């Protein structure tokens, strides 16, 4: 072994191209080996389940167990089973306004919620990043603290706050701002409030990270060159925190589109977001193929912004 190391070093020293290139291949392979586990993970827990859902979405609903046809049991019948797959469910979704409306509603509710979240999270993150260094860990802790309680319980608590005789209305009436209780629960406003509240940390943390990383002397340099503070914010701080803003927006928007619990608990029966539609198809109608097709279309709609996001990140990183 010692001899082997010796000769290898000697070869490297003399620059023997063959040894060098074989070593380079080995290094390259080791470098690639590191990224195998995450790929295996994604393959096992994302791609395979997705393919199963995709296959179900091409099936036909039947009253049976499992409640769809065909199933791939005996390998000798696979060809026949394959020929039974159909895109009828997708045509059905496209023809029924119910589905299109719930996609559209989900997208705009998620969009507005994302904007509200951004408007609250940015000043919050800015304040945190400018706070004395000793105070920052505490502030960071406070942002993460709500996660220590169950998400479901926290959303439930909002019913108590927002209902007509709830805490918010009692407070507003007590201070004389309103005479009659505001109807917030079971409206879109309740959903906006619920999503904004629940997803605020996902927006705050990436923005905080990008602001915290920023060199404060850049702001001083801007001032030194004659730029007043407000303008320095628009020309220096904001552009440099944009990667954090974009990351935060995607972290809020993407899960908010598929959100089920918040619209179900706070939005009442009139709101129909896509998460709820999937739930209804799956559990109430027991129509797995249509539910799967709805889910697949949702993934397709969301992949687009994710790809844009990745492009943006790659460019910012490069």
């Amino acid at each position, binding site marked *: 072994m010692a001899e082997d190391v010796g000769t290898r070093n000697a070869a490297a020293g003399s620059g023997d191209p063959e040894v060098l290139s074989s070593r380079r291949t080995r290094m390259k392979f080791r470098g690639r080996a590191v990224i195998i586990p995450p790929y295996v993970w994604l393959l096992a827990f994302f791609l395979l389940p997705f393919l199963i859902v995709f296959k179900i979405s091409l099936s036909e609903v039947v009253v049976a167990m499992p409640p769809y046809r065909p199933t791939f049991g005996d390998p000798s019948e696979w060809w026949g089973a394959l020929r039974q797959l159909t895109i009828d469910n997708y045509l059905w979704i496209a023809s029924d306004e119910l589905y299109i409306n719930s996609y559209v509603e989900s997208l705009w509710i998620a969009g507005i919620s994302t904007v509200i979240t951004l408007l609250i999270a940015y000043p919050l993150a800015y304040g945190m990043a400018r706070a004395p260094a000793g105070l920052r860990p505490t502030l960071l802790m406070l942002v993460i603290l709500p996660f220590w309680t169950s998400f479901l319980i926290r959303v439930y608590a909002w019913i108590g706050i927002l209902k007509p005789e709830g805490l918010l209305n009692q407070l507003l009436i007590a201070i004389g701002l309103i005479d009659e209780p505001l109807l917030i629960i079971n409206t879109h406003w309740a959903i906006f409030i619920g999503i904004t509240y629940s997803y605020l940390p996902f927006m705050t943390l990436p923005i905080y990270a990008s602001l915290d990383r920023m060199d404060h002397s850049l702001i*001083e*340099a801007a001032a030194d060159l004659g730029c007043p503070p407000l303008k320095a914010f628009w020309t220096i701080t904001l552009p440099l925190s944009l990667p954090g803003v974009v990351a935060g927006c995607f972290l809020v928007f993407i899960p908010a589109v598929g959100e089920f619990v918040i619209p179900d608990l706070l939005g009442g029966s009139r709101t129909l977001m896509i998460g709820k539609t999937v739930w209804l198809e799956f559990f109430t109608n027991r129509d797995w193929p249509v539910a799967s097709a709805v889910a697949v279309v949702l993934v397709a709609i969301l992949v687009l912004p994710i790809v844009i996001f990745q492009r943006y990140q790659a460019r910012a990183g490069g």
Partner: protein
Amino acid sequence: MAPMKSLGSIRRDFAPWSDRDAKPYILFDGVTKQFGEFKAVDDLTLTIYEGEFFALLGASGCGKSTLLRMLAGFEAPSRGNIVIDGEDLAGTPPYRRPVNMMFQSYALFPHMSVEKNVAFGLRQERMPRDQIAERVDQVLRLVKLENYASRRPDQLSGGQRQRVALARSLAKRPKVLLLDEPLGALDKKLREETQFELADLQHQLGTTFIMVTHDQEEAMTMADRIAVMDQGKIVQVATPEEIYEAPNSRFVADFVGNVNVLEAKVLRAEGGRMSLEAAAGFTIETVNAVDASPGQTVFYALRPEKLRISGEPLTGSNVVAGEVWDIAYFGHVTSFRIKLDSGEIMKVAMINATRVSPLQLTWHDRAWLQFDDDAGLVLTR
């Protein structure tokens, strides 16, 4: 006060500080800056003249950066006034001051090209577009970066970034340019080259430069005058030669360059000459300009290169013998540490003027040292 013949600036025709009628351009008048209980700058008064290249030299935490930041407007003085060109700057925010700063970290805007970085200050002035382009082109040419205008800062080397930072701070043609450790982030070779370029540039533009540095070599090579600072106060303001050859205290002598400081008692003092009895046990004969009476304890500061070393016994005055304790060969200079018979260590530097030194001294050899009567300096503090 200085006993030397004549110690001027490197630019011998430029010495407004010795002209009684010269108008101060920048004035710090009794300026104090306190952070809680800590006085970063302590009742400091200083005048700087137009066109001067001025260096604030000191160890970290001596208050030099705070002084610069007060001039730029990032810190407000707790007491005292700062005046530039007759205008009191109290209450003027940084973005309305006629000074520009080159930051130690360069603080280049990472999302803007070199051109946009340099144009940033001009855009704030709402200068017409064609004039901005012209000015940017001009300053980029000045720092020899005209071919890099469209690059982003992360596509430049450290030296190039330093030049962009310089170009950006010069673009607005400020009355005063502030440089915070301008060469601190460069490697040694590049730093030496840039020192001369920066000094040339300053002479060419005639802009007043104020530089903060902890590197005495940087201050010595570039500045017209140096202020040596310690604990928020200025210890001495003088030209580089004066700082080196006529330091006013042990602190300055020790901070700038190498020095042997010998404690001594005054034996006789008359007619500009003095005899001292060194604590190391020998007599020093020296020319002198300080006021000290016989019996008083003073310090005799002697630079290593002003001592002669010999392997043979020497005769005459100002001779002391010892043992070679250490030898360090630097190429251009050989540095000896000689342990005197009293136990004190004397540093001696010998210029290697010939390739083969006639002096063949080695460890533990006996050596004799001699110095002229005007080689050292008597200090009282």
